């Protein structure tokens, strides 16, 4: 089966991420659905790096990449307002995470001499994708510093988990990316619920309700599509029983 290239997926993710952030910046919070592609692109790059025998290092790559992206977004939010000038904010965040991600990737390749093909490209892609997701989430949740740890960690798990969960001899890109979509929907659903609480009004804001509704719809569709693939990939599904005796 032909695999989607890193460039293609990231190009799409970049465009869709910026579109999503501009929509959210103009008050159309349903634009968060455009942030699902950056989730896919980050998960795909983590897959690209962890495939080469990193094993349990998978989780480290996930929280490293998100730390680069999210830290850039958090630091930039100090001086560039994400609400009044979303485009400048996104440009700054993506540029900074590109520099840090690319630098780390090149160092890992040249100085540390990791034998992982395209490590620099994958590092930069993870950093930039997670930076866009963080920027979008910050726009929705507002700049309450108490929420920063939550934004960081929920994105971390959503991007590191798809490959971690699918590891095995029968792993393939399509199923991993669909799982990434499931988890992206789950993450935006939780962000929507937290945004409802964070808005501090007694009636939920309609934008936050729209996020929850769109994410729930996306979640149902993604789970159905993913489960269909699971059924075609799996050896056997049974309600209960014993494995065939060998010893």
């Amino acid at each position, binding site marked *: 089966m032909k695999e989607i290239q890193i460039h293609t997926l990231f190009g799409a993710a970049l465009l869709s991420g910026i579109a999503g952030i501009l929509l959210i910046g103009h008050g159309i919070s349903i634009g968060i659905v455009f942030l699902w592609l950056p989730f896919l692109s980050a998960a795909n790059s983590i897959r690209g790096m962890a495939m080469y025998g990193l094993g349990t290092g998978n989780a480290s790559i996930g929280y490293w990449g998100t730390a680069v992206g999210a830290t850039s977004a958090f630091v930039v939010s*100090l001086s560039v307002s994400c609400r009044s*000038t979303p485009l400048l904010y996104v440009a700054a965040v993506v540029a900074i995470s590109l520099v*840090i991600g690319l630098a780390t990737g090149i160092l890992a390749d040249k100085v540390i001499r990791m034998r992982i093909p395209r490590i620099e490209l994958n590092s930069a892609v993870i950093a930039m994708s997670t930076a866009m997701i963080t920027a979008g989430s910050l726009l929705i949740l507002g700049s309450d510093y108490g929420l920063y740890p939550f934004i960081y960690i929920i994105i971390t798990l959503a991007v590191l988990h798809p490959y971690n969960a699918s590891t095995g001899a029968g792993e393939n890109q399509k199923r991993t990316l669909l799982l990434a979509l499931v988890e992206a929907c789950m993450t935006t659903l939780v962000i929507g619920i937290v945004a409802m609480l964070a808005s501090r009004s007694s009636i939920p804001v309609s934008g936050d309700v729209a996020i929850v509704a769109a994410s729930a719809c996306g979640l149902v569709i993604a789970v159905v599509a993913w489960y269909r693939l699971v059924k075609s990939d799996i050896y056997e599904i049974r309600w209960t029983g014993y494995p065939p005796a060998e010893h």
Partner: protein
Amino acid sequence: MIDPVTATIMIIAGGVLVGVCVHFIPASATGAMAAATGIATGPSMLSAGAGLAGIYAAAYSIDSGLAPVIISGAVGSALMLLITILCGNIVLAFGIGTPPVSGQTASGKSTFGGTKDIITGFEQEGYRSPGTDGHGMPFQTVVSGTIGALMGGAGGALVFYAVYSMTLPAISTENAVALAGIVAAGVFLINSVLPAYVLVGKTEGMFDMKIRSMHRTFISCLVTSSIVACVIYAISWLAVSGVVA
């Protein structure tokens, strides 16, 4: 309070300390099956756990100035690491029934050669269960881990205090602490993963031959944290001088 340029240098120094500390903390993922010497989890995960415990401890003395913050961070980290080692050894001694032993030393491949523990002088050969690469944390790796945790905690606390004093003029104290905490954690997580590439998931601390490739970690972390530090400097300068877009 310290001036922004010193703070930038502190962030770089903190990042490098964090990177180097991972080399000193004995850790190995197969330790969970008592199949290798070292604390039973990935090096970067364990260092992150110890370092963040250090930043948590350092935060209590944020009002007392630079030196108390750094030293409380260092000892807070060391406390976490030593408690983990003690309890890990308790599980190995009474749950698995094995004495702590260094696999590298037992096979004569440690930094200083010989098959004896450098500090206690205990013979390591023969105490290793057949087919494994040692188990538990013998005393020399404990000392190495303590040094590593002291460095990691100090590094995390340095970054924390530096970011705190750089952002304080722009935002309220409460927000500055919160932002400094999450940025310090971010810098810690960025720098603690780079050495894990060098170590390939397993190290016995400073008595492991892998300590000799520490210069690679040093250079990588120096470059990475310089970039991060410059970004933080530039942004906080913009914020403090009022150029808010």
